[in-house]
């Protein structure tokens, strides 16, 4: 294994949305996107909202289809091109190599918060008790009172859900983390906790790719900013 290879290498990435319900209108979002993220590095996607930043994260995660180009993920035993990998390979990559912290929480209705947070560890074979302890630790650090741990997060406020989501995303030690505005609706205290968590992960060698609207957070955590607008077609409506 060569350590100088980036954990994530995005090259020549194109993305166009075809909206069949609107007469097949095509919306070109990205053209020829190139960037790398190395271990222990935090790369931030910059640009105005609507530039396609979230789409990039989703393509890296395998959540959006890639029209053209490569999304090479190399971490541990994983070495795949997400753009062409089959679902099984992508699921394996998600389990062993990359995590995703989105703005919105999506989970099964009846599962309690503590289990939601512990789930990524359990899925990786960590003993349920130990996973629960680590989940509890993370939830208290993020200021979720322990009386809520046994309740399903669907009943929580927006900010609480966001923090459960952050805990869910940060609990496992994965080589690659994708962060989609993890601090968006947090107060200053919790924003600070998230920044700390990010710093700890970077220290441990995690590669990070993120979107941060909060300029202060962005400047604190970013090693580099990729200007997404440079890769946006002049006219969004393709031929």
């Amino acid at each position, binding site marked *: 294994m060569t350590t100088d290879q980036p954990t994530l290498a995005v090259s020549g990435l194109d993305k166009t949305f075809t909206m*069949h319900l609107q007469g097949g209108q095509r919306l070109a979002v990205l053209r020829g996107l190139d960037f790398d993220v190395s271990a222990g590095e935090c790369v931030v996607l910059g640009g105005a909202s609507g530039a396609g930043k979230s789409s990039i994260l989703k393509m890296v995660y395998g959540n959006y289809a890639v029209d053209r180009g490569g999304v090479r993920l190399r971490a541990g035993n994983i070495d795949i091109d997400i753009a062409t990998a089959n679902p099984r390979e992508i699921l394996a990559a998600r389990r062993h190599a990359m995590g995703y912290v989105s703005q919105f929480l999506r989970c099964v*209705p009846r599962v309690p918060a503590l289990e939601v947070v512990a789930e990524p560890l359990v899925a990786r074979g960590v003993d349920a008790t130990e996973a629960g302890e680590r989940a509890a630790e993370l939830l208290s650090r993020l200021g979720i009172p322990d009386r809520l741990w046994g309740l399903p997060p669907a009943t929580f406020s927006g900010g609480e859900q966001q923090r459960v989501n952050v805990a869910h995303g940060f609990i496992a030690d994965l080589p690659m983390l994708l962060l989609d505005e993890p601090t968006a609706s947090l107060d200053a205290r919790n924003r600070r906790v998230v920044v700390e968590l990010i710093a700890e992960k970077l220290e441990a060698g995690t590669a990070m790719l993120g979107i941060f609207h909060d300029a202060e957070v962005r400047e604190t955590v970013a090693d580099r900013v990729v200007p997404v607008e440079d890769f946006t077609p002049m006219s969004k409506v393709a031929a």
Partner: protein
Amino acid sequence: MSDERPLLEVRNVSHRYGDRFGCRGVDFDLWPGEVLAVVGESGSGKSTLLGTLSQRLDTSEGSIRYRLHDGDVANLAELSESAVRRLWRSEWGFVHQNAADGLRMQVSAGGNVGEPLMANGWRHYGRIRAEATDWLERVEIPRDRVDDTPAAFSGGMRQRLQIARNLVVSPRLVFMDEPTSGLDVSVQARLLDLIRSLVSDLELAVIIVTHDLAVARLISHRTLVMKDGRVVESGLTDRVLDDPQAPYTQLLVSSILQG
């Protein structure tokens, strides 16, 4: 390693009703521990596909290869009826939309769950009853209901009983046909959660037919979208639902969001 090969290899599978195709040219692999959702509107061929895969309908074209418990790979169309029924007894389960189709309504809950054990040669009443009672508990039916008939159960309980009856013999592949439709929303959520946890605990492979994209999203890893008997799109469930490519999938997804 047992994961080296798929459990089910489906190649170009069709089922014909007379000169009309119920489903046509279906291809996919299914791996242990994987949940595959088949979505589409009624008449799209999803139930026909389920019937064909589970050998309740014949395979007019193509092949279905299944990796047996002992590691041998069988072409399902070439198996004798008794071999297929042996699979049904010991390796496969089928959860029907209507619990009455999958249960004996006049037989007690314990008898319903115990029957597959007895069919597999269990001959010790005490052990059969103990196993059945444990399974009732796993599907959240109180132990003291073991001697009640499903006729006295609510819809959600019947469906959970049906799941226990299917899982008691530790199958490797379970077919589910709209297992949650017809239930109240809260009951649905509970059932889905139960299915999800059992599937991951038991490393089951599941093919679930549903018209409800929310069900597909909650419990499946992969999704096939069917229309007019054909698969119009397939892939990771979140990819299919969040970035649908086919016109029909886009219609389906947008209909749900607006509905």
